[in-house]
């Protein structure tokens, strides 16, 4: 993806070089930035589904760079509740803003919006499909913690079926020859399609349900929440909630350099007793979202000279 192209929709659109380029630009924003870089620009945040971190970190990123933010986080208070189509909403909002960040419950809504809009669209989550900016901040956090992305052992734990962050991160890390351990209840295993993709790229992985069997091999433990809202059957959710639970004692018996990540929010899979440990980097991970999103907004609004072209 060249940054001549206007949108960020799916991690599949990014080559290894694209990913490294974005991480490099993000690093520069962490050190220093011009707080007037996006002065005069307006970001519209259209959140058709709830969000805390993604929406606020985009707002924070835009504000830090001198831009303004408009938008909604409750579609019930907009014309969407009167039956307005997504196409019409996008057509209207593109006249009010310079860039749109959108979260939508329907898979593929972001791609459709991007094809409809003349201004850049950033996908902040489309159903169970993609959440590319989360993946970029995950990569940034890994690179910052380990000084590299290559050849790491990562364990993904929890809801691997519906967890879009897991699918996207696994795909992105396949560029860097990670070894992956997928730990989940049998009902929430990684989709076959994603595993086939890893096979194609000759990525080593294992699947299982017992975290303790692989915990000592891991550099990164990527915890995820069992997502109640994705279950068609609430009884199935009741059966599976709380099936993994990490606490400080568990972490004490793991490898010294292990880092625990989580896209958050957490429910009961990650005990607060882990928070103060040097292994916990999930709050730093969430904070890195602002830096990475500052870089993305600046790139898409053409405020950074693309040194690659």
């Amino acid at each position, binding site marked *: 993806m060249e940054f001549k192209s206007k949108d960020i929709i799916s991690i599949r659109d990014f080559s290894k070089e694209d990913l490294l380029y974005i991480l490099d630009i993000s690093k520069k924003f962490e050190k220093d930035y011009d707080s007037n870089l996006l002065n005069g620009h307006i970001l519209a945040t259209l959140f058709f589904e709830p969000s805390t971190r993604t929406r606020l970190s985009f707002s924070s990123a835009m504000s830090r760079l001198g831009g303004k933010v408009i938008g909604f986080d409750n579609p019930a208070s907009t014309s969407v509740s009167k039956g307005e*189509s997504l196409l019409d909403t996008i057509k209207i909002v593109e006249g009010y803003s310079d860039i749109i960040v959108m979260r939508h419950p329907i898979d593929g809504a972001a791609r*459709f919006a991007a094809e409809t809009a003349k201004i850049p669209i950033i996908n902040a989550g489309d*159903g169970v499909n993609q959440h590319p900016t989360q993946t970029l901040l995950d990569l940034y956090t890994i690179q910052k913690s380990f000084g590299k992305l290559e050849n790491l052992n990562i364990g993904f734990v929890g809801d691997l079926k519906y967890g879009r962050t897991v699918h996207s991160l696994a795909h992105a890390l396949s560029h860097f020859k990670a070894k992956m351990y997928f730990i989940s209840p049998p009902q929430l295993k990684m989709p076959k399609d994603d595993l086939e993709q890893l096979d194609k790229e000759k990525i080593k992985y294992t699947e299982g349900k017992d975290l303790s069997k692989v915990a000592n091999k891991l550099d990164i433990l990527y915890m995820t929440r069992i997502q109640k809202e994705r279950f068609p059957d609430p009884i199935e959710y009741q059966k599976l909630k709380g099936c993994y639970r990490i606490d400080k004692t568990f972490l004490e018996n793991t490898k010294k350099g292990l880092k625990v990540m989580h896209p958050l929010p957490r429910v009961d899979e990650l005990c607060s007793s882990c928070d103060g440990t040097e292994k916990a980097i999930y709050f730093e991970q969430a904070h890195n979202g602002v830096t990475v999103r500052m870089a993305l907004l600046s790139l898409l609004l053409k405020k950074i000279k693309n040194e690659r072209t």
Partner: protein
Amino acid sequence: MKELKINAIREGTVIDHIPHNMTFKVVDILGITDTNNIVSIATNLYSKKMRKKGLVKIGSRFLTKEEVDKIALVAPNASVNIIKNFEVTEKIKVNIPQILNNIIKCSNPRCITNNDKVSTLFHSTSSSPLKVRCHYCERCMGKEDVELL
């Protein structure tokens, strides 16, 4: 003496090497159940390669690219022969197209194409076995999930 199974046609199209259980699917794709054209349909014919095959002949009709693409999805080894003056003037080997535009339905009920007025679009990732990926929801589908529009 040779057994004449289907009459030759002066002008039109012959679709050969259809898997025997897909013969009537091809008939459906072409919408020739209610037509004035001469149509011959044969199935369970002997084939050296396929053991049993289907064959469809339609007089005075030439297929569109969209029709050929649809046939490729259900009969990936079929051949489409164009007949003019009783002679085969062109033999088209069907191919799974790289892009399938508004030809099949996405099997993901949460996909935007099943929830809004959005035409389907698929990218073919493998022709054997058939694998296609939805341009919008990125769901990968195999032959068993393919439903023609």
